């Protein structure tokens, strides 16, 4: 009864202002609760002290305000420094490799005929929709010591090298090389797609104009295409670099346990060592390291948007 009495008022409120408030507030509250709050917890946790209780932490105790020991350990403990260096190094290498393979592929995609282009684009996107885990797994099969791929590579190696350096197989699994290779494999579409989106918009008549003015194809590429595709390069590189540097699955499956990677360190500190404060400190430090590229990204993104706007208005 009361609801029926009230509903016209609610309806009016909803139709006028209410729907706007609901549209903003619902996702806002959700993200604050399930994304912002956990994030705040991580930061707070990095200043807590580990205790053998459940949940395994406490504030105060020996450290009245906050415990900064975890951050000190990050610098002093060789394990963490090595993990950061390995992760950043691998991610950088993988990003460069993705760029070297992905750029010509993206450029090639803009040069093939329309019908081919659609088919090939679909083939780039297809692995996206299959499981990430299974793609990593596919390489485990290829890199194993008995696999046809390994035998093929070993044969080629032995044929080139002198006989006294012959190998029975090439050790690929559980190496840094494997991590970079599989990272490149898994993240290559993230490089190709933004690059393609950028290169596709470039005006081919610019190339023709440059050639008309006497540039050779490589000079055209260097002077026209490359500078104009910079936003695509930046977007693609960040889309590869950021997730690659925190990667957990790839190092766990094909990496070497003697080469710690930061994703695994966080996971191990948290789950195996049950050291929540330390895991949180490692996570916060990783985020700080990633904030640099992130800010560069938003900066370039914002600038290109502004430029587009200015061009649109004139």
């Amino acid at each position: 009864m009361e609801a029926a009495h009230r509903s016209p008022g609610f309806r009016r409120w909803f139709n006028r202002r209410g729907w706007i408030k609901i549209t903003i507030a619902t996702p806002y509250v959700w993200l604050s609760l399930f994304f912002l709050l956990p994030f705040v917890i991580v930061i707070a946790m990095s200043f807590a002290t580990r205790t053998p209780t459940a949940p395994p932490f406490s504030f105060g105790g020996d450290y009245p305000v906050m415990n900064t020991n975890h951050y000190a350990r990050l610098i002093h403990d060789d394990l963490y420094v090595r993990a950061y260096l390995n992760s950043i190094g691998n991610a950088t290498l993988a990003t460069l490799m993705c760029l070297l393979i992905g750029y010509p592929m993206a450029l090639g995609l803009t040069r093939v005929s329309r019908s081919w282009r659609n088919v090939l684009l679909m083939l780039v996107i297809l692995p996206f929709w299959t499981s990430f885990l299974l793609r990593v797994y596919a390489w485990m099969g290829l890199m194993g010591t008995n696999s046809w791929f390994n035998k093929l590579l070993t044969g080629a190696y032995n044929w080139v090298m002198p006989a006294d350096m012959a190998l029975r197989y090439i050790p690929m699994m559980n190496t840094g090389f494997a991590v970079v290779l599989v990272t490149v494999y898994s993240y290559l579409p993230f490089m190709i797609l933004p690059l393609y989106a950028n290169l596709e918009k470039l005006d081919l008549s610019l190339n023709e104009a440059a050639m008309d003015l006497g540039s050779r194809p490589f000079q055209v590429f260097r002077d026209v295409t490359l500078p104009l595709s910079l936003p695509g390069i930046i977007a693609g590189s960040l889309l590869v670099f950021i997730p690659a540097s925190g990667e957990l699955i790839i190092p766990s499956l094909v990496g070497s346990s003697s080469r710690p990677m930061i994703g695994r360190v966080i996971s191990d500190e948290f789950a195996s060592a049950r050291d929540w404060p330390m895991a949180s400190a490692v996570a916060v430090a990783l985020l700080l390291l990633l904030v640099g590229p992130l800010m560069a990204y938003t900066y370039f993104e914002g600038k290109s948007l502004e430029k587009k706007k200015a061009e649109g208005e004139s």
Partner: protein
Amino acid sequence: MNRRPVFLITMLCFGFAFFYIPILSMMVYSFNGSRLATVWGGFSTKWYVSLLSNRQVLKAAILSIEIAVLSATFATILGTMAGIAMARFKRFRGRTLFSGLVTAPLVMPEVITGIASLMLFILMAEYIGWPATRGFTTVTLAHITFSMVFVTTIVHSRLVQADEAIEEAAMDLGSRPWQVMKDITLPVISPAIMSGWLLAFTISLDDVVITNFTTGPGTTTLPILIWSKVKLGVTPDINALATITVVIVGIGVFIAGWLLNRAEKAREHDIQLAYQANQ
């Protein structure tokens, strides 16, 4: 330019070989009769038989799909709301924080999201008693949270591209803003909303890391099951599972592409008809 870009074509061939050789090799070895996953031992379909009679795998697959459908649906609702808020409500209190909240999960390393969510759920269970245990609920909540921002991105970019004049036209014809949203905006962006759902569904179906942190005993999704098996090494029945996945996805993508192509052709035909009618 009539010179063929030989180098670029070569790179494309190399790139696609790189993409597909591991997958094809995996598919071939799923028919391997040998117990040793990487040594060829004759053609056999026994791994498919053993896979399809494995109740554990079936149960995990069904659970994964349940979680994916549920979380994709909620993620689509929340993500669409956020996309509309970002694209159409130019000024509201806390907009800067809001725009940070809808972009940060996109680039947050999964490990960090995973431990952060887990700590939240443990503390929630400790202090408010809900969700009491980790499992279906916590996994779904986490999946909704990190997949909704992908929906937001899609919906937002669609709304930004859309011609705002059609919304103004509806208002000009007497509709209030909410009616414009209902009659014009939502129908026009419905393809984007659908692709958002599809993306959220696949992301949920594929997730290992966040699920691994937020799940509890008894709630084993398919990726978690595969993960626990794969950590121990290459096994032939996973090859079979992977092949099935690739084939299903491949067929899905092929059908989608074919439908799109047909719609495009029909559209071109319509437009031609229109011009003939106008002559």
